[in-house]
């Protein structure tokens, strides 16, 4: 897999946009970078070599979801490739299901975004002890809750009805994952960290709040989305 760093080098500090486009058009390898750069109005915003820009409009929302699904998929792939000690057959089956869902989500967004997709991210899971059940399931809970809060918080920005419905189709599956993980941890299905106990409504989060957390799990350039307020 190509790394974010490579792509950002390709995106190029100081590379003139016109020559960059010409270069990017020469190879599929840079398709994601092309989209990232092309989403900018060149007269307003120069390429920002300090972050990966998700783009604007619905593309930004889809890339936002794609980035989060990349992290989730990579996490569960690693969980299953080096399972924590004492993992039961049932836990392995359940986590395998979740991994398969997240990989499908990731690949779906990649296919749907095509040339507008951000590059493949390089996750940094150094904070997670993959040998330890509590660490792994705790991280899983974090990722799933973050995903739900992120989808819920960005839904109103989606302009295209089909995309809104698609996001809705995915977010409930993420919520199902989150509930299962809580059960595996011996916890109730929700608590005040994610639920407003007086209204029974989940606490959604803004892209700014979500990306600050997600970026802790990414190597290389952080994600940024000025179009989504982050």
């Amino acid at each position, binding site marked *: 897999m190509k790394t974010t760093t490579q792509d950002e080098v390709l995106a190029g500090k100081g590379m003139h946009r016109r020559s960059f486009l010409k270069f990017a058009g020469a190879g599929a390898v840079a398709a994601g970078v092309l989209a990232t750069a092309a989403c900018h109005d060149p007269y307003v915003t120069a390429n920002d070599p300090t972050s990966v820009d998700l783009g604007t409009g619905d593309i930004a929302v889809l890339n936002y979801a794609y980035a989060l699904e990349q992290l989730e998929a990579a996490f569960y792939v690693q969980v299953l490739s080096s399972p924590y000690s004492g993992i039961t057959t049932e836990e392995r089956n359940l986590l395998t299901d979740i991994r398969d869902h997240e*990989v499908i989500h990731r690949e*779906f967004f990649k296919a749907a975004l095509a040339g507008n997709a951000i590059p493949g991210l390089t996750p940094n899971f150094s904070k997670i002890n993959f040998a330890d059940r509590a660490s792994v399931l705790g991280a899983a809970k974090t990722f799933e809750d973050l995903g739900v809060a992120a989808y819920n918080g960005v839904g109103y920005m*989606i302009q295209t009805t089909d995309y809104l419905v698609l996001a809705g189709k995915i977010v409930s599956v993420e919520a199902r994952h989150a509930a299962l993980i809580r059960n595996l941890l011996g916890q109730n299905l929700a608590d005040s960290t994610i639920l407003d106990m007086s209204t029974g409504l989940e606490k959604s989060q803004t892209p700014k709040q979500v990306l600050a957390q997600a970026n802790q799990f990414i190597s290389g350039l952080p994600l940024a989305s000025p179009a989504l307020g982050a």
Partner: protein
Amino acid sequence: MNLLNLISDIQAADPEFADRVSPRRSAIKNITSFGSKVAVAALPFAFSTLFKKAYGQSANPSVNDVLNFALTAELTEACFYNTAVARAGEIGIPSGDLDAIKLIQADENNHVNFIKSVLTDANVSAANKARSTNAITTGTVSASFDFSGAKGAGNGPFATVFSSYPIFLATAQAFEDTGVRAYKGQAGFLKGNQVVLTAALNIHSVEARHAAYLRRLRTLRASSSVTADFRPWITGDGTTASAITVSSAATAATNPIYANDNQTSQAGVNLTSFGSAKAASEAFDEPLTSADVVNNILVNFLR
């Protein structure tokens, strides 16, 4: 907050105010953004008159239609759990599971109150069914519902819902999985409405958490009536392990809950390129229309 009063005062004096100062979507967006010190939960109350003005007549169905539909479904659920918790001993709910059931009960009652308040502030009457079930009774089965699933006859496939824990869990799953699909089917009608859509999404995901957790409790109580590979997510189209498998009659009555949920392609993308058909169907929950929910599912539980 004086500012909020001011807005409604202006609206009362000049009904066109909101539309004149700013386009509909940006009106909602801008006003809510500077109200960040107001609890998010309070926003729909404060702005409900603005919703009515801005959205009440422009969508089909309208935002109020959506809210009434949601209220009907939430009332059904709230009444169901109120009865169940009052009869917890009779049902045989294990003490270890009771906290989760009680949290779900609280959530559903909160959802009812939340949606009612939004509608009340908008001076809109609740749907007929919702109004008739206004007072949610505890300890007894409401006169408005038949939770056996027999349209009032009381002898449906879930007849022992309040005396058998496995049947209770199966019925609860039916309501929650329906709720998830029902809310999802309404999202498109609320597009661009920051406050109402976000509130609906924030209820929708909670219903999904309920559904998954109840499915998990069923799995942990697995018996001959529940297959061993039963999962918190929906597999296939209701003829699989995710179905309500307590009896053939129950499965038949609740198959509409899972109708067309076995999709393996989304937005023209064939998902089986990326995983199994099973995983592809599980990875996306499908929506249901309000007509499907009421006519094919809820009707069984209404007198």
